[in-house]
Every structure is written in structure tokens, then in C-alpha cells.
């Protein structure tokens, strides 16, 4: 037997234990409801210190026949027992839902909108959400019948669909003697695009566009489509109608009739470039062409996407890059 247990092994064991303790098919369909059976309780360090003190007090009460010493010891012990119920009820029947939010690129972090939904008529104070490493992502007090939503960020090292993974929901309220917690693993995949990288120039189509030099950017003539709002976009271009319909912040794209065009070709990249580096370069280009409002055609070994120039098209391109080479395994 190998006695040296690596941190990775420990992590893997912990992961397996938590998966078992999640007590649900993972990844779980949303919203995740914490059934009472999957809410665990155990004394905290402060709780164990109190237990030790109670033991001392009990011995003192027995030795000196202090009837009120018994009473005080029993009183604090009873408070501890009622504490268990209160901690447990703070989590029981709480609902959690996660929604992938924004764009994520490999190597940075992906964001989710995490909603804690308290549909019941009780206050659920001091709820923490922790990631698998024990880092606090969120702290919230939930009023009766309220929902708390916050944006959480988790690291995403690789491209492709990524689940938020195991999260811990915990509370130590009301006194911090008992910790109640539950593991969740919700099904909220976030599509992580390749990390944009590479220093090759955006390959603009030769011809009339070259005269423009810079490669014309978004004009204000014709409505060309919508794309996700990015910091820096003019508020005048925000699609307020779509926002009112609850479709989120979108920016209207206008393009002049003679929009520049670019063809982003996998095969045109220098030979000897690794596939991931190619994807990174292509991703970089897609982002640049989106920024420039250029008509884009993406050529990958699997086929061609485009030409197109609206937000949806660029998103399709990024999705293809994110899933490149991954879909076949699924099939």
C-alpha cells in the first residue's frame, strides 16, 4: 500500500464522499430543493468546546451535589439540542437554482447567477454558499418568501461545457454551536469558450475593405442585429424593448452597407500549430471581428459557419470553437 496520500487523492476521496452525501442523482435538475434527509448537522469547534465545559460542569454538580448545577448544565445542553432543530430548519426546503451568466473563457472564471429561493414563511438567516475548496461564495439572510440572487464566480480551466460542481450550503445560526450543511451539484452547465490568445492579425478579406485601412467598424446606418451588452456600449444602443421583455441587456448593432468581411480559416493557420493554440487564435479573431462588427466566416475541419455579422452568429462561432472535438465523444 502506498502510505503517502497525495492531496489529489484526498480531494478525490472527499469528492466521492460528498457525492454520496449529496443523496441525489448528479448533476441534479434545477431548482435543487434541500430535502430534510440531505441536511446534515454536526457540532462545530465551538460546540465541542461547550460540550467539554458541560462535562466539567456536570462532574462538578455531581461531586458537590449542586442541584442547580445539574439544572444549568441541562439547560445549556437543551439549548444545544434545540439549536440543532433551528439550524436544520434554516436549510430544509430551501431551493437553489443556478443560471450560467455571461461568457467565460478557459483559464479565467465563469459566472453563474445563484438564486436562493425561500418559498416558506420563515426567515433563513446567515446562509453561506461555499465551493468545493471551502471558499465562501455568498452570504445571505433570507426573509420569508424572498429570493436572494447573487453572481458567483468559479474558475474554469478548460473549454467546453462546465458544471459548477459540488457546492456546500451551510449555516451555523443561531449560536454557532452546530453547523447544518448540505451538498448540491446542480445541472447548470456553462459553455466555456477557448482562451483567446495568439498574435496573428485579423485576416480581413482583400479588396475594397483594404482601402478603409482600419477595417470599418460598426456604423449607424442599418440595424444589423443584437449582441450581449458590453461595458462601454452606448446606452442609446441598448435594446430597451428586449430588456423589458426580460431577455436581458442587449446592444443593437448597426452596420454600414459595406461592412468588412473576414474569413477565419483553421487550415490557413501556420502548420505545426497545436489544435488548442489554433482554437485560441480563432477565438481571439472571432472576438476581434465581433468588436469590429465584421462579417465573419468561420472555417473549421467540421464545416463552415457563416458568413454572418450579428451577435447570434458570433455566439454560434464561439460555441463551435468551445465544443470543437468534444461532441464526437458524446456521440
Amino acid at each position: 500500500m502506498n502510505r503517502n496520500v497525495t492531496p489529489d487523492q484526498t480531494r478525490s476521496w472527499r469528492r466521492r464522499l460528498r457525492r454520496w452525501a449529496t443523496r441525489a442523482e448528479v448533476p441534479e435538475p434545477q431548482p435543487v430543493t434541500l430535502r430534510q434527509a440531505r441536511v446534515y448537522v454536526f457540532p462545530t469547534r465551538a460546540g465541542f468546546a461547550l460540550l467539554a465545559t458541560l462535562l466539567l460542569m456536570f462532574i462538578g454538580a455531581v461531586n458537590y451535589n449542586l442541584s442547580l448545577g445539574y439544572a444549568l448544565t441541562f439547560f445549556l445542553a437543551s439549548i444545544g439540542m434545540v439549536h440543532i432543530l433551528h439550524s436544520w430548519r434554516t436549510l430544509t426546503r430551501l431551493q437553489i437554482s443556478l443560471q450560467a451568466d455571461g461568457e467565460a473563457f478557459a483559464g479565467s472564471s465563469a459566472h453563474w447567477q445563484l438564486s436562493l429561493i425561500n418559498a416558506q414563511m420563515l426567515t433563513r438567516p446567515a446562509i453561506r454558499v461555499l465551493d468545493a475548496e471551502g471558499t465562501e461564495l455568498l452570504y445571505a439572510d433570507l426573509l420569508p418568501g424572498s429570493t436572494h440572487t447573487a453572481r458567483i464566480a468559479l474558475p474554469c480551466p478548460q473549454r467546453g461545457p462546465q458544471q459548477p460542481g459540488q457546492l456546500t450550503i451551510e449555516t451555523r445560526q443561531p449560536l454557532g454551536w452546530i453547523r447544518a450543511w448540505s451538498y448540491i451539484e446542480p445541472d447548470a452547465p456553462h459553455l466555456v469558450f477557448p482562451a483567446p490568445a495568439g498574435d496573428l492579425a485579423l485576416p480581413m478579406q482583400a479588396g475594397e475593405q483594404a482601402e478603409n485601412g482600419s477595417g470599418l467598424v460598426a456604423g449607424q446606418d442599418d440595424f444589423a442585429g443584437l449582441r450581449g451588452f458590453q461595458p462601454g456600449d452606448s446606452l442609446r444602443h441598448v435594446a430597451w424593448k428586449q430588456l423589458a421583455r426580460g431577455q436581458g441587456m442587449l446592444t443593437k448593432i448597426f452596420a454600414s452597407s459595406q461592412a468588412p468581411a473576414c474569413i477565419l480559416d483553421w487550415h490557413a493557420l501556420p502548420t505545426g500549430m497545436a489544435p488548442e493554440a489554433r482554437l485560441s487564435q480563432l477565438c481571439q479573431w472571432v472576438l476581434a471581428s465581433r468588436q469590429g462588427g465584421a462579417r465573419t466566416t468561420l472555417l473549421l475541419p467540421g464545416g463552415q459557419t457563416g458568413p454572418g455579422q450579428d451577435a447570434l452568429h458570433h455566439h454560434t462561432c464561439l460555441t463551435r470553437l468551445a465544443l470543437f472535438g468534444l461532441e464526437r465523444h458524446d456521440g
Partner: protein
Amino acid sequence: MAESRPSPPLPREAGFFLLATAALGLAPFVPYLPWSLSLLAALLLLWRGVLVWRDAPPPARFTLLLAAALGIVLTVASYHTIFGKQAGLSLLSMLLPLKLLEARTRRDGRAALLLCCFLLTGQFLNAQSMAVAAFVLLCATAIVATSAKLEQPGQAPRGALRTALRLLGGAVPLMLLLFVLFPRINGPLWGMPLDAYAGSTGLSDSMRPGSISELIQSGEIAFRVEFEGTPPAPAQRYWRGPVLSEFDGQEWKVRESMLRRAPTYTVAGPAYRYSLTLEPHNRGWLLALDYPDSGAADALYGDDLVLLARRPVRNRVRYNLTSFPETPVGLQERENVLKAALRLPPASNPRTSALGAGLQAGNAEPAARVEAALRFMREARLAYTLSPPLLGQHPADEFLFDTKRGFCEHFAGSFVVLMRAAGVPARVVTGYQGGEFNPVDGTLVVRQSDAHAWAEVWLAGRGWQRVDPTAASFPRRIDEGIARALPEGEAMPIMLRQNFEFLRSLRYRWEAISNGWNQWVLGYNAQRQLDLMRSLGLPDADWRQLAGLLAACASAWLLWLGLRLWPRHARLDALDRCWRRLCRKLARQGVRHQPWEAPGDFARRAAAALPQHADTIIAIAEHYATLRYGPGVEKPATQLAALRAAVQQFRP
């Protein structure tokens, strides 16, 4: 894990909570601590208060050590030791403000709270009255509220208090169950500090003129008696304590006696059954009405007719006895006992000795000598007083012939000297005489002020006979109590006076309550627990049955509490119930309503998923939205009924 990270700093408001809790926890110590230590503790708390107020860091470790050393020095100066009960408690009570003073993090705060819990237990060594219990409950609530504040520093002070009270409501029934049903162990588990029981009042194993009149100044309760059936007449209520037969001319002392497991006499005559609750007096004797039957639990019978416990009585004890006052005792008394009961120191009390010799010469029968001696004392016009003059070298002589003023110990002592001089074996018996019935709960309360001394003479063929020379001279002392026997105008302890009827009745009530407290709360021990189980129909409950019963009751309570605390949805009105029903029906078809979805959005999604029912779904949803959110609906009841019918008929 999250726990191994450094503890977060102590927030300011929680710092004040902690300070208030510590002050509450230390308050019960103030009457028992020397003033210098109380002052030191108060100053340390004040210092802490200033630091918290100014958000200043704790003082340097060196300063803290200096303060700790000062505490130790003051303790040693007050108690001359750092061991023992009082010194230990005072050191502990210094530790709390010091710990508080150096507290930086929440973990320090929690440690101070635990120390506070420990201190509260410790102070029960000083007092366990009802007032102390109420105060400790307050402190415990403060500890819980401070814990809540430490856990959620953001919540308002009132919120922390409310949390504490909510927990308290759930915990108190559980605590009562634990208190009554948790299997009790009779302590002590190990030896006690020597000073643990200092300061108990009661009879002593010696008597000199003045010792009993000192004792009767105390209104403290010596013991309480509950009789089964008729109690004996006042004149028969002699509660025997130590028997004194050694006399050195000044002082009467207990003589070593043989201890047996059963009495040497055979009981006879009418019986009185009673249970007696004796206050701790740190001595061995168990007060009993003359003469107890065999079978007193865990007691020994001395050959001077005294009942003794195996260990000094250091806790309140309750025992059941049957006494037979008319039992003949000492018919075959041992020779050395009788010899000791005749011994007088040489050349003491010459006048009394001469009087005794005269009695012996004039009366052949010992019984006649007893009568003659009592007659002499009656005719000597002795006065019964609580403040007799001091006596010199020959106390019996001076009392009988010169000062003629004395208390029961003078009467009994002088009578026994006289009897011994007359050749009749005699000895002094101390104990209590009388007692008063508390009209509230019907118990006979015997106080230190009922302490009494009388005499016992041995007559051939009749054994030991009780003779009370005080009663012979002042019959009212025995029939009506001290207050009647003392002359008018005599300075008396306030509660003995006759003209405070209102105060007396108040005191009766109060003592009845505190008797209940003593019997059922403080005196609740393994024996009481078994008695209670017996009365509940479990004749021989052992710890397993108790634990089982406890587990069952506690689980039942926690289950009930859990159901009450179960997170519930808000009460829905009829309209929402209709909507829910529709959602349930659609959910069975795989279209789940999401909490954030508006009725219209959900209906559109459902309609898309179930195109064959699209119209119905949209219609119901619109109807619901109109009723719920629309302006002034006509005939709401009819509309609601229509909606309900539509939902009912909807079969996806």
C-alpha cells in the same frame, strides 16, 4: 476546512454584549469575595469597557500578567492559600475579566462565555436559593444571546435577545425532563476542600454556659418534620442531639460511645411516624424524637441513645423514622456508663456538692432525691433569661445560690451536678425542644432558636428518665415556647417576639415555599427520583428505565418542536390554490412552473409544450392574472368559482 482559518475579530457591539454578560456572571460573587478582589474585577471590566468603547487593542501581555499576579496576591492575602473552595472561586472570578481583557477574536469571546458558564456553576457552592436560580437563568439567557450576537454580529441587539428567548422556549421543557429523569448519581466523587462546609450552624459536641443562648439568637431552620398522623404533644417534642456526660467543672463534653447497627432497646408504646429533613450542620448526629425504631437507613445507634450518620451531614438529608417515646431504655446499663454518669471533678462547685450530699442523706430512694432537687430549684426562685450574667469558677454554685439567673444550659448543667453529688447517675442532653407548625404546608419547623438542654437520670428498674429542670421551673417554656417563658421586656431575636403577627405569617408563607424548593429542587437526588418513579407506577426503576423514559419523552418533545418549526408555505388564498392546482396538473405532464415565472410566461411555455391544450391553458392563466392583478373585478366570488371549475375540468 473553514474552521482552521484564523477566527474573525470581535465586533464592537458583540464586545459590549460580552462585557454585560461577564458583569452579570460575576455579580453573584460580590457578596462572597473580599472587597479588594471585587474592586479589582470591577476595574478590569471597566478597563475593558473603555477599550471596547474606543476600539483600542487589548493591553500588552506583560500588563495582563501583572494584573493576574495582583489577583493572586490579593487572593493569598485574603485566604492565605490559593487552594480550597473560596480561594479557588475567587481565582476563577479573576480569570474571567482577564480573559475578557485580552479578547481579540470571536473565538476569544466564546472562550470567555464558556468560562462564564463554569463560574455560574461554581457560585452554586455559595448559594442555591430561588433568587440565585432566577438570576442564573438571566445570566444563562445573556450567554445564549451573546453567542447569537457572536455568530451573527450584524443582527440588532433586540434580534439577538429574541433568538435567545426563542431557543429558551424550546429548551426549558427539555431541561425539566432532563432534571427529573436524568439518572442521578449520589456524590461526592472525590474528597471536598476542607473549607467547603465551613460556617454551618448547629449544636456542638460541648456545652459551656452561654453556648446555647448564643445558638438561639439564630432564626435559621435546623430541620423540618412531616408527621404521618397525629403529632406528639408539645411537651413530648424533645429532639435528641449530642449527649454530654463528661464534666470538667466548666464545660460539658460528649463521651465516646459504642456505635451499633441496631438499637439496644426494644421499642414499646405509641408510635409516631415522620420524615425529617435535616439542614446540613457538618456533624454526625441525626436529630430524632426519642426513641427511634431500628431500620433508619444508613444510620448508627449510639449507646447514649443518639442516632448518628456514617458521615458528617454536609447536604440536606431526608430520612424516615418511627419513634416510640415511652420505650424503656437503659434497663441494663453498663457499669462504666453509670460510673461516668456519676463522676464529678474534685473541688468544684462545693456548695452544690454539699447540697447533693444532703439530698442523698435525706432520701434513701434515688427517685425521691430527683423530686427533692427539682423542688429545691423551683423554690430557689431562679429566673429564666436569655442574657444571664457571666459565671466564674463554680458555675453551678454561682447559678443556684448567687446570680439565680440563667438559661436552659444553666438549669440542666446545675441539675446534673446536683444529681451526681446526690449519687444519682445523670447526664446532660442537648437537642431541640418544640418547633412550630407552619400553617401553610403543615410541616413542623424546628429552628436553631429551639435549641435546648435538659437532663437524664438513671433509676434502677426504670432506666434512663428524662428530667427537664427548665420545664420544672418554667412549664410555659415547654408548652408555649421560649417567648412566653421569658419575662416581658427581655431583648429577644425579632422573630421570637409575639407582636409581629404579620411578619410571622409572611415568614410562614415564605418558608413553606422555600421548603418546597429545598425538598423538590435542591434535595432532588437519586432517592427522590426513585420515590417519584414509584409514585408514577415504576416500583423498581433502575437507570436503564430512567434513561429509556427520558429518551422517549425528549424525543417526543423534539419531534413536536420539529413539526412546529417545519418550514411551511404561506397560507394560500382560494385563488392561489386554484393556480397551484393547475401548476400541479401541468407538472405531471413535465411542464414545471419555475418560481420566477410570471403566470403569462408560464402559460405560453406550457401552451407550446402541450399544443392540444394551448387555448385552455392560456385562457385559465389570463383569467387568473385578471383576478389576481386586474383592477376592480365584478362579482369576484362567481369569477373564482368559474376559474375553479375550469381548473377542475382541465385534463391534460
